């Protein structure tokens, strides 16, 4: 059933027909033809051979059929056939012949009609229909006709294959909706009704078919008038499953590119930009609209334009460029540090047609790198030891100061457990520290003990902070270690000095109470000795008592600083002063067998408080004598000199040297400390302290060297006194002098 049938049918009904009639008696082969028939045949009734003429004009291919039909007609009394006939004027015609025997006669009556026009029409329509049928059948797309109710009226073989039908019966006359994926059924129904209302349209839907194989289809449909006058849908439907997959992939890729943090652009081999994503817009300030079609040099700084041909050359050779760090320009002229990755783009045949480039803004990264370097430099140059460890207590970084403080190099210790520098008895500290750090807590100024590589204990103050990753998760700890050994020593020294100062103040307040009774007793002993001189034993006792009192007096004088000079500073001949003092000790020097060696530069004078200087010298000479109970040599040296640390300060150096046993190394740093003595029985522990006090009061300095070795032992004190006296600080009980001297006293030791 097709529209073509109807068209030809209508046409033929309007064509005027020429009909001829005939009588034929097969028994004697006589016939009579109507005039219309002669006209149809183009023969003449007067021609006795007209039958032969007719026979000769029958289209040769049809002659046999004509003869057969006529013979059958003669036997059965019924005939009907068509044949082609060469009309002398009208050319080749189609003739229709129908004949029947009336009653029981031998004659057959019939008619002949020229059916050429109708025949041609039907032939054309048949050919057209055939052509369409072939087209429809051979098209790879599904062609179907569906009526308003969704019944499939027609479907080509491609369509049948698509829906998985083994024969047309499986589909024709059935509902089309069962073939559609359930979620698309309503849309398809709506679409079908829309088309059947006389609209054109197209639809994408999923087909499940009879076998349940899902395909994505695209249908283009038009309304069509059916034979019964209803409007049906004629649809051509294409399987776009693969196309839609590719489209999806492409869309996904496009979305990825569009949403990428990195700027992504492409260019052709002439360097003309062909695509430009959102990030590229953000990074460079140009919109895609603005820049697509412009040369890529738009974003390259002028001095780097030479780069571009090189990049293009590489791309033409199919070589990708990876992480190429360079500089590009923002629309506003600002330079951007970028990392470029450029890859060739190939067409389907593999020809390189352009380049895709991924541009990463590394300005921030560079800044971060610089900041990190700067921080690293700060950490490295910090005076505090700075180290880090992970949550297992494994050391992960170690700066220069840490190397200095603990003696381990970074190479040695990184990767080792931190317990390496913790004394074994404090290993539990580490557990406490780690558990605090894991909780994200900070530890500040935690004072503890650590161990140097050489085993020496170090007093340290630790400040430990958790190190967090980007997500805020604690991944380790950074610690700043401050060596407080020195600070603690000073602290302790200060405390000692503080105590001494207090003791000194107390002593001073009670001095009067001690010195007055002592004065009285001294006087009384003197009187007793004078008045009891007749009794030798008593006199002996009193002399002993007097000597003991002298000793007490000596101690109180030294202790309480009563040897302070009571007079103004005077010109003092240094060697003369020493000579005078030596006179006082003459007897003791003799009795001990001590030789005195004087190495004096004569006539050196200083301005000083004579009594105090005498006290200082006398303390040193006494110490030297005490160091040589078995005899030895006392060397006194006086020379012109200047201050150790200040060449512009002229003065005199006095060296007092003994060949005694020397001071043990462990005691050397303490000799200037108050109450420190190696002379258990006779020492007050104040002599050197007071001596140093006097020297410093004169703005001088004192140093000591001592040796205890077999091949040379002894102690040398060297005093520098400036030529001019200017009152210096009061030193007894003063904090600064003690802390200073702690250091200077250690120097020469």
């Amino acid at each position, binding site marked *: 059933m097709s529209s073509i049938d109807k068209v030809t049918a209508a046409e033929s009904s309007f064509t005027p027909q020429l009909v001829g009639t005939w009588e034929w008696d097969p028994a004697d082969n006589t016939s009579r033809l109507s005039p219309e028939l002669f006209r149809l045949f183009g023969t003449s009734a007067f021609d006795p051979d007209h039958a032969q003429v007719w026979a000769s004009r029958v289209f040769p291919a049809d002659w046999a059929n004509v003869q057969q039909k006529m013979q059958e007609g003669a036997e059965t009394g019924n005939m009907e056939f068509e044949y082609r006939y060469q009309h002398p004027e009208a050319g080749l015609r189609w003739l229709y012949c129908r004949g029947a025997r009336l009653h029981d006669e031998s004659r057959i009556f019939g008619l002949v009609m020229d059916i050429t026009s109708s025949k041609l029409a039907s032939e054309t329509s048949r050919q057209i229909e055939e052509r369409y049928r072939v087209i429809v059948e051979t098209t790879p797309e599904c062609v179907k006709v569906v009526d308003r109710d969704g019944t499939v009226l027609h479907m080509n073989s491609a369509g049948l294959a698509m829906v998985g039908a083994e024969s047309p019966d499986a589909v024709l006359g059935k509902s089309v909706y069962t073939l559609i994926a359930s979620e698309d059924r309503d849309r398809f129904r709506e679409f079908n009704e829309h088309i059947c209302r006389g609209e054109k349209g197209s639809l994408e839907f999923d087909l499940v078919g009879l076998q349940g194989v899902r395909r994505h289809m695209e249908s283009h449909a038009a309304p069509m008038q059916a034979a019964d006058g209803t409007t049906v849908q004629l649809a051509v439907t294409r399987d776009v499953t693969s196309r839609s997959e590719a489209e999806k992939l492409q869309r996904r890729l496009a979305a990825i590119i569009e949403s990428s943090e990195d700027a992504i652009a492409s260019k052709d081999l002439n360097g003309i930009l062909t695509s430009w994503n959102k990030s590229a817009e953000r990074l460079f300030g140009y919109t895609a609209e603005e820049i697509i079609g412009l040369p890529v040099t738009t974003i390259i700084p002028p001095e780097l334009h030479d780069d571009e041909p090189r990049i293009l050359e590489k791309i033409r050779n199919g070589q990708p460029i990876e992480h190429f760090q360079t500089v590009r320009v923002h629309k506003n002229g600002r330079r951007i540090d970028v990392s470029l990755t450029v890859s060739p783009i190939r067409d389907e045949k593999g020809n390189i047609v352009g380049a895709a480039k991924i541009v990463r803004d590394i300005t921030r990264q560079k800044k971060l790198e610089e900041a990190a370097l700067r921080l690293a430099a700060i950490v490295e140059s910090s005076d505090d030891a700075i180290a880090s460890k992970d949550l297992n207590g494994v050391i992960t970084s170690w700066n220069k100061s840490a190397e200095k403080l603990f003696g381990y190099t970074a190479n040695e210790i990184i990767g080792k457990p931190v317990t390496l520098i913790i004394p074994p008895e404090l290993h539990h500290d580490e557990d406490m520290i780690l558990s605090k750090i894991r909780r994200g807590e900070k530890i500040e100024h935690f004072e503890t003990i650590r161990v140097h590589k050489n085993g020496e204990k170090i007093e340290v103050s630790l400040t430990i902070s958790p190190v967090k990753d980007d997500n805020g998760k604690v991944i380790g700890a950074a610690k700043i270690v401050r060596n407080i050994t020195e600070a603690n020593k000073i602290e302790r020294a200060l405390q000692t000095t503080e105590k001494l100062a207090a003791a000194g103040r107390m002593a*001073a307040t009670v*001095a*009067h109470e*001690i*010195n*007055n009774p*002592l*004065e*009285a*007793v*001294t*006087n*009384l002993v*003197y*009187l007793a000795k*004078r008045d009891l001189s007749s009794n030798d034993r008593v006199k002996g006792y009193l002399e002993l008592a007097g000597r003991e*009192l*002298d000793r*007490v*007096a000596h101690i*109180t*004088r030294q202790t*309480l*600083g*009563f*040897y*302070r000079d*009571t*007079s*103004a500073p005077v010109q003092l001949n240094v060697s003369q002063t020493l000579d005078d003092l030596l006179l006082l000790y003459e007897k003791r020097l003799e009795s001990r067998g001590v030789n005195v060696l004087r190495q004096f530069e004569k006539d050196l004078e200083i301005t000083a408080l004579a009594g105090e200087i005498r006290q200082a010298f006398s303390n040193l000479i006494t110490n030297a004598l005490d160091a040589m109970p078995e005899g030895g040599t006392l060397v006194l040296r006086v020379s012109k000199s200047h201050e150790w640390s200040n060449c512009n300060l002229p003065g005199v150096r006095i060296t007092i040297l003994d060949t005694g046993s020397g001071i043990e190394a462990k005691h050397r740093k303490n000799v200037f400390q108050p109450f420190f003595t190696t002379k258990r029985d006779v020492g007050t522990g104040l002599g050197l302290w007071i001596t140093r006090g006097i020297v410093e009061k004169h703005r001088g300095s004192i140093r000591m060297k001592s040796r205890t070795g077999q091949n040379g032992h002894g102690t040398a004190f060297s005093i520098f006194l400036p030529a001019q006296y200017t009152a210096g600080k009061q030193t007894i009980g003063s904090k600064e002098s003690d802390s200073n001297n702690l250091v200077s006293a250690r120097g020469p030791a």
Partner: protein
Amino acid sequence: MKIIVVDDEPIIADTLVNILEGEGHDALAVSHGESAVKWAKMVLPDAIVSDVIMPGMDGIETAIAIMKFLPKCRIILFSGQSASFDLLSKARAEGYTFEILAKPINPEKLLEKLNE
């Protein structure tokens, strides 16, 4: 030699007087600065041996007062307290220079000093 010994502690003043007298001096003990000045005006001593820190006039004030009318009188100060030295520097600022001997002073040294 006529000597006045000044000390607020009588036992010190008395024992010193005793010692000085034993050496043939003519010594007199007083217990504070004011009486020292009073007696000095009367006896016109050759020397004054005085404590420094005393109630009332201190030793230096006493010495200065006496030096005003007895410029040739020898002054020997002795003290058991470091505070004395502050007084000394004050006196020095006023133009007087004194030597202070520390207590306890050996009697023999005192005698030597007097004989200088």
